[in-house]
């Protein structure tokens, strides 16, 4: 019985590894010299090389794009948290006039297709002189990340026993003090998972970034990858190396911070 369970465990792991196979194949390609790219019958390249990574680091816009993406994703997460935490607390705990309507708008706006708002937002960014800036991307990304963030955080805050807040009030704290000193520490894991999801969404965002950027001053990783130049033929090895670099932050988040991420991902859907 024990042996059978062990076989099952290994079989499931192998199947999942096969599912992740396309990514591993890209890792292999990124270390394969151009001359060997057609030799697909080998599992590993005969003479592995880092030449593609050097090419991407020294002769492409990827380093700059990685910096842009990091900055935009980090700023989006900060702005969304600064706006979303107080709003989520008010929705969970305070009497806000028109709360039902507000909740409806928040839920409905998570279903807004970006393609419908991209043209007015483009005109707006151009009108404000924000084309090709981090600010435009932070604003646009915040607009689609904020509803989900508020929804998740309000759910976490509702679970905090109200007595804990009452004690702080008796000590003379105001609402803001309660939020900062009682609520935020208690829902820190929830805040972390919501922040990670926001960071990931911003890191992966393509449509707004592709439309609002014009040069490498603000182009993010997905845009740089989509526009990866080839002179005479497609540089598959360089593209593979660039896509592995683009995947590193998401992979770190998924592997290293799995528990927090899974909590955020399932909290919204399972508490209905």
């Amino acid at each position, binding site marked *: 019985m024990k042996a059978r369970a062990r076989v*099952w465990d290994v079989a*499931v*792991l192998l*199947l*999942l*590894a096969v*599912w*992740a196979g*396309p*990514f591993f*194949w890209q890792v292999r390609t990124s270390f394969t010299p151009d001359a060997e790219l*057609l030799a*697909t*019958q080998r599992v590993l390249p005969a003479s592995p090389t880092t030449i593609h990574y050097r090419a991407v680091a020294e002769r492409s816009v990827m380093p700059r794009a990685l910096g842009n993406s990091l900055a935009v994703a980090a700023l989006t997460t900060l702005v969304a948290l*600064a706006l*979303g935490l*107080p*709003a989520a*607390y*008010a929705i969970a705990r*305070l*009497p*806000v006039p028109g709360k039902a309507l507000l909740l409806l*708008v*928040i839920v409905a*706006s998570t*279903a807004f*297709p*970006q*393609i*419908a*708002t991209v*043209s*007015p937002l*483009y*005109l707006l960014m151009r009108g404000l002189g924000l084309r090709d800036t981090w600010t435009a991307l932070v604003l*646009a990304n*915040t*607009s689609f990340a904020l509803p989900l963030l508020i929804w998740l955080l309000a759910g976490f805050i509702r679970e905090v026993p109200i007595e804990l807040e009452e004690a702080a009030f008796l000590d003379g704290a105001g*609402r803001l003090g309660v939020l900062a000193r009682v609520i935020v520490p208690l829902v820190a894991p929830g805040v972390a998972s919501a922040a990670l999801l926001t960071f990931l969404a911003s890191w*992966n965002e*393509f*449509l707004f970034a592709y*439309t609002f950027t014009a040069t490498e001053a603000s182009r993010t990783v*997905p*845009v740089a990858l*989509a526009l*990866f130049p080839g002179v005479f033929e497609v540089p*598959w090895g360089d*593209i593979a190396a660039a*896509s592995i670099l*683009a*995947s590193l932050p*998401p992979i770190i988040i*998924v592997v290293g911070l*799995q528990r927090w991420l899974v909590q955020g*991902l399932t909290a919204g*859907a*399972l508490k*209905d």
Partner: protein
Amino acid sequence: MTARQRADRRAGLAFVAPAVLVLAGLSLYPGLWVLWLSLQQRIPIFGIARFVGIDHYAFLASDPRMWNAVRVTLVFTVASVALELVLGLTAALALQRQRLGRRIAVALLLLAWALPSVVTAKLFEWLYHPSAGLVNVLLGGRTLNWLGDPGLALAGLIAADVWRTMPFVALLCYARLLTIPGEVYEAARVDGAGRLATLTSITLPLLRPVLLIALLFRTLDALRAFDLMFVLTGGGPAGTTETLTVYAYRSLFQTLQLGFGSAIGVVSFMLVMLVAAAYLGVLRRAGATA
């Protein structure tokens, strides 16, 4: 109203105000503006900006390219969501019996989901390469042109989307399965229920609400999908992978017809809202009978 209640009301307003203002400015206002744009002829490079009423919609109603885009969008959505649900459910059930290496299993599962969709597009572009692509090699050295053949491109696109999003469904189901107490299965075993009976009369009914939510989330996302097809096939070959979103984008920013493209964006928006409303109706009825 006590002083405390008044203070809470003021605090409540002050707390939601910044978020509401940002959402109003960056979601609601553009959402209304796009309706207005869609009633105009706006071609900035020629300096054209005039009101044309519902002309764009009237044109779209008999535009073969439009109807093709609607068909592609629906085929893509139905096929990829159905495959994602079946495969995701299977993966979750397999994981439920997993004892060792669960963390590694979940990490492997989530890998495909966490990658940027542009990376997925580049991965599959290489896998589908006619002569050096792994897919053709595994098929015994064929030279199928997956992304260039009008008969294959949509299937290739759907496969890439299923690869990317199956883990989301699997994770939702898996998280629900973990909350089912072991005693439930123990009781079923004592009652002599076989593995199949346990699955159909215990596990699946308990998963139903999660599956409905996964269905809603995934359907809305598939209807709105853009990145993957735009980068992988650009809508081609011969429009066989051109969804509403790609048609809208190309009209907006490649042929620079801001008004016309906005009208397609509005159609896409209406489609998403219609499907969302229909699902919520079904969910509510399911909730009433459950």
